[in-house]
């Protein structure tokens, strides 16, 4: 196996067996681990406290106990997180930080305290108006509260120097993974949809220092091999996340290359850089203030513009909306950007997903039909039958 494929399979292993990966790192470093519920929990602070931040992004297990707290009309990520918490999967964590963006998260934050009492809950409430001075002041206060809780766990102070070092490390990580995202569309075979996802997701379960090194190495190995031609269509993904793997395999099966994404689990995590602030916490708060995501209040409703730009900059043929079933923040955004993309003539495919799906046949038909629709001209006409046909 080449070095390139070895790194890829290591990352795939981490992303498909996160529990194992996290335990191994805890043993190796002697660090405690803190769980980070989606979305935008301040990993930098956990890292500065000398602990390992661990992403918590649901899974594919059978829901048995979580039903007690979350009805079947709650999103599958939260049902999974609670289920796994209740069945002891997360017992290696010393605490979890739970933000309260949407209605489901607000409930989970309370549920967790009773359902998973063995793991300490640290709630985080984010400001609605992020970019005002009051928003920033409030945010830094929230960070300070989290810091106190973490300090009580380790018994050591989290210094400004440590925080700044951690921010620098995270900035480096964000730069590196952005490079990977930018280049992945050039390798539709080696970095197909499933691999691309696994490589990015692995970051949630690694010490970001090691992870950045691995991604850096992956990038330099990639440079040594020629880029690959994509035969099918090029798309931008938008939504919370694109899972399960069976869905990603359908993209590969139909020659769909993911050239960019606007997923909460992927690019939304790292597309924004720190760009101002007089101290570490302000830097974090200001970065948060300019982040763009369906969960964060945005008066300007910029998502449509953002998607249009992603399509244009990456020469994409269309946008695939992976709509997490029962996710209200994502559903609220949809009609607004749908209209804008329609006006621009950008083809869209709407797929409703859950993390665990018993059958993907309907998705197969939709994805295949979308490819046929977008590729129609080149596929069936070849200029032979009808010379004046126009493509999409």
């Amino acid at each position, binding site marked *: 196996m080449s070095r390139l494929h070895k790194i890829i399979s290591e990352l795939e292993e981490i992303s498909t067996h996160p529990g194992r990966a996290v335990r191994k790192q805890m043993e190796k470093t002697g660090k405690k681990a803190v769980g980070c519920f989606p979305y935008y929990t301040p990993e930098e602070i956990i890292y500065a406290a000398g602990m390992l931040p661990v992403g918590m992004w649901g899974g594919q297990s059978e829901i048995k106990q979580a039903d007690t707290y979350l009805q079947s009309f709650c999103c599958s990520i939260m049902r999974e997180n609670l289920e796994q918490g209740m069945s002891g999967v997360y017992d290696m964590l010393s605490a979890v930080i739970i933000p309260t963006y949407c209605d489901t998260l607000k409930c989970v934050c309370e549920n967790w305290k009773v359902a998973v009492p063995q793991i300490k809950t640290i709630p985080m409430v984010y400001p609605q108006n992020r970019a005002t001075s009051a928003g920033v002041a409030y945010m830094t206060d929230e960070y300070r509260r989290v810091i106190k809780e973490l300090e009580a766990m380790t018994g050591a102070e989290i210094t400004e120097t440590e925080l700044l070092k951690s921010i620098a490390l995270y900035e480096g990580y964000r730069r590196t993974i952005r490079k990977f995202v930018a280049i992945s569309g050039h390798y539709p075979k080696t970095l197909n949809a499933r691999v691309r996802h696994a490589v990015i997701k692995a970051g949630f379960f690694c010490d970001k220092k090691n992870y950045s090194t691995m991604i850096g190495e992956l990038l330099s190995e990639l440079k040594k091999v020629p880029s690959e031609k994509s035969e099918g269509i090029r798309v931008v993904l938008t939504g919370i996340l694109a899972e399960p793997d069976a869905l990603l395999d359908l993209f590969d099966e139909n020659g769909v290359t993911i050239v960019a994404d606007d997923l909460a689990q992927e690019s939304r995590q790292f597309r924004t850089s720190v760009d101002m602030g007089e101290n570490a916490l302000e830097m974090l708060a200001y970065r948060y203030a300019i982040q763009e995501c369906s969960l964060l209040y945005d008066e300007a409703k910029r998502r449509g513009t953002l998607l249009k730009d992603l399509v244009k900059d990456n020469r994409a043929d269309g946008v695939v909306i992976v709509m997490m079933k029962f996710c209200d923040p994502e559903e609220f955004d949809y009609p607004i950007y749908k209209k804008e993309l329609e006006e621009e003539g950008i083809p869209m495919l709407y797929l409703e997903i859950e993390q665990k799906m018993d059958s993907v046949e309907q998705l197969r038909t939709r994805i*295949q*039909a979308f490819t046929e629709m977008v590729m*129609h001209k080149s596929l*069936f006409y*070849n200029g*032979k*039958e009808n010379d004046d046909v126009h493509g999409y």
Partner: protein
Amino acid sequence: MYMGIDIGSSSSKAVILDKTRRILASAVVNTGTGTQGPEKVVETALALAGLFPEDILYRVATGYGRMLYGKADRQITEISCHARGAAYLVPEAGTIIDIGGQDAKIIRVDRDGRVENFVMNDKCAAGTGRFIEVMARILDCPIDQLAELSTRATEEIAISSTCTVFAESEVISQLASGAKRENVAKGAHHSIAMRVAGLGGRIGIRPIVVMTGGVALNLEIVRALESEIGYRIVVAENPQATGALGAALYAAECNL
């Protein structure tokens, strides 16, 4: 000679075209994927055309069972095939409504019969052929006489549940409390039309509207749908076979 095979959830269809794309044979068998249906429909179509398997230069499979059927040269989705078939029959078609056994689709096509946009119903059976089957069963009426039953209605009993399972118990309790079968049948037809029209609202319906798929044989649904969407509907000739026809047309093109 070119063949299109449409393997659905509850029926299999085959169409054979000659070199000039004239229809030589068209066959329908009422069993679908996972059965002998696909084999049988191919044999029937060949017999009707007086042809042997080796006469077929190219085969395209479509429909829910397209991936499982091993003998096709290519698989193309029923979305593209229904669009192609309907546009061949009605060249001015702007929107195609296809209601099959398990799903409902609305496809918008451009002037050249190419798919512009489409929507499919979600996993559930509301607004599909399955819903009619269930209703026919509780009303104790053969499925091909359900439309006729509904024309004898004196009023409409609205069915408020969209879910097929809930609608079933709703109808049972209506019947138990003395509602007339024909009035319930009318409500059932209307309920499907509402579901499908709602689906259409997601992509917008543009005339001329063509209806394909087995459910188009039920003229009461066609009528109810016309009044819901506000456009006249042209029912494709031999509506069940439209997908197979489209597949056969693609087969002819692929073989160029």
